[in-house]
């Protein structure tokens, strides 16, 4: 049978965001996939260089509307590192609280989207209704439902009262009940099992080679979690488990996310119990001295990496973002090969793609005269010396 090349996207019923997948088909089977990205590229990194650090807080938040807080925490941590500030413990706890609430809402959201992609819209309506509980809590704490504007450089902008604390704990009780129900559904419901079991296989060695991150690689049995490996904010003070499964398929990714909901609830309860009293913010100067910083957090989708180079003015010299979806896309190509066309939407959705935050473009201005090229080994040496100079390598 002749091979068919089938374009999916940028505007397509199965995709929520504009991306193009050029799929080569042999009958019903996917032979090869070519992903073309860049449709939602706005140029935020460059735009940041023309805005002050305070303005950038709000711009960074809008890199992504779902894991917005992970980005802001990264940005604040970078600026605080260059400034040499230590934020008060209460602020650090509150940041962790909002980070975990964000993970909760994101995982509920994803569960619904996954249900929608396999034609199980009832699950979508159920989980999104429960997600509203988290949204109400976030609105209660920060004043906003989506882009919270909760952080400032040197701390957080709002305090948490006793009443709010109680509402958070009540919300956790309700969500725990609901999550127990979803756990039952995820492992027993035939609608999910028949669409998710054995679909989109990612072997651990392949995942490691392609540098997949977050729940995608944890579902392949690799325990990678920045919260555990390089604790930021107040993750060092709380105990939780890194969830992994060995099934390597879409079902594994469902199970990892549902079980992570329980870990989130566990963390939030500990935070509420230990929440120290004290200041919310330390004063930060407008101008940031020359220096560079790197920060990574475990966003709901995986490792989110930010790099800042400051030049002594009130605007950054260079800012670099690498989001988890960017890291997971090469793995998607591997997952799609050999599967059926009908499974493409759920496999793509299984990494919880957020194209809005990862889109980038590359312009080759002068192909005759390529710039300086650096080999893989040279890059490794460079990275290792860079880390060693900062005392981060043992």
């Amino acid at each position, binding site marked *: 049978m002749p091979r068919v090349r089938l374009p999916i996207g*940028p*505007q*397509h*019923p*199965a995709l*929520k*965001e*504009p991306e193009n997948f050029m799929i080569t088909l042999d009958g019903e089977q996917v032979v090869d996939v070519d992903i073309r990205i*860049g*449709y*939602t*590229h*706005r*140029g*935020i990194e*460059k*735009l940041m260089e*023309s805005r002050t650090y305070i303005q950038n807080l*709000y*711009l960074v938040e*809008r*890199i*992504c*509307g*779902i894991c*917005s807080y992970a980005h802001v925490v990264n940005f604040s941590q970078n600026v605080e590192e260059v400034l040499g500030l230590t934020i008060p413990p209460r602020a650090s706890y509150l940041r962790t609280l909002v980070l975990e609430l964000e993970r909760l809402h994101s995982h509920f*959201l994803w569960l619904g989207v996954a249900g929608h992609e396999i034609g199980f819209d009832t699950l979508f*309506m159920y989980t*999104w*209704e429960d*997600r*509203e509980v988290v*949204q109400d809590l976030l609105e209660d704490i920060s004043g906003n*439902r*989506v*882009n919270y504007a909760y952080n400032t450089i040197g701390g957080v902008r709002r305090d948490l009262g006793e009443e709010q604390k109680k509402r958070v704990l009540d919300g956790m009780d309700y969500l725990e009940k609901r999550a127990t129900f979803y756990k039952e559904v995820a492992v027993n419901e035939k609608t999910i099992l028949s669409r998710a079991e054995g679909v989109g296989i990612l072997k651990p060695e392949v995942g490691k080679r392609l540098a997949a991150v977050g729940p995608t690689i944890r579902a392949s049995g690799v325990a990678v979690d920045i919260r555990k490996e390089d604790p930021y904010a107040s993750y060092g003070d709380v105990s939780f488990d890194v969830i992994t499964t060995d099934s390597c398929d879409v079902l594994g990714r469902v199970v990892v996310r549902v079980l992570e909901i329980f870990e989130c609830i566990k963390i939030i309860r500990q935070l509420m119990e230990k929440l120290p009293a004290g200041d919310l913010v330390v004063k930060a100067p407008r101008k940031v001295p020359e220096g560079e910083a790197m920060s990574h957090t475990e966003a709901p989708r995986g490792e989110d990496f930010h790099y800042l180079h400051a030049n002594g003015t009130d605007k950054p010299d260079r800012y670099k973002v690498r989001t988890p979806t960017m890291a997971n896309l090469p793995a998607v190509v591997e997952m799609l090969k050999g599967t059926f066309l009908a499974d493409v939407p759920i496999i793509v959705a299984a990494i919880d793609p*957020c194209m*809005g*935050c990862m889109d980038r*473009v590359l312009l080759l201005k002068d192909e005759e005269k390529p710039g300086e090229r650096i080999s893989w080994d040279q890059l490794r040496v460079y990275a290792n010396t860079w880390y060693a100079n900062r005392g981060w390598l043992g």
Partner: protein
Amino acid sequence: MLNRLVKWARIKSPWILHMNCGSCNGCDIEILAALIPRLDAERFGVLLKGSPRQADVMICTGPVTKQMTERLRRVYDQMPDPKFVVVVGQCGCSGGIYTGAYGVEGGVDKIIPVDAYIPGCPPRPEAIADGLIKLLAKIEKGGSP
């Protein structure tokens, strides 16, 4: 008589197409949040559709990126007449926080005609449902473009 019937049908079942022109996803999840049981925009006959050929109302989010400009125009042309465009979010209204970025055209109304604007970053689901109802009221009054 037939005209009145067509108008009645149009108001009772506005099928919507969601078009992401480079948004950060904040507005997109709030649009979906307007469809869930809490607000239940479906009681106004609103149904999310994947194809522009079946849609009456196009909901646009995000500042229009350079890559999406041509595609937005093409999708708009594919929709059958009469068609309506609703812009959700501040950046779709004017470019918002992304004004000045090299990849952004800024504002959906620079590319295609717009019937309703719902500002906010992102607007609450209630505001989105309200905006849709206002659009329906406009159509009922005979504001057909």
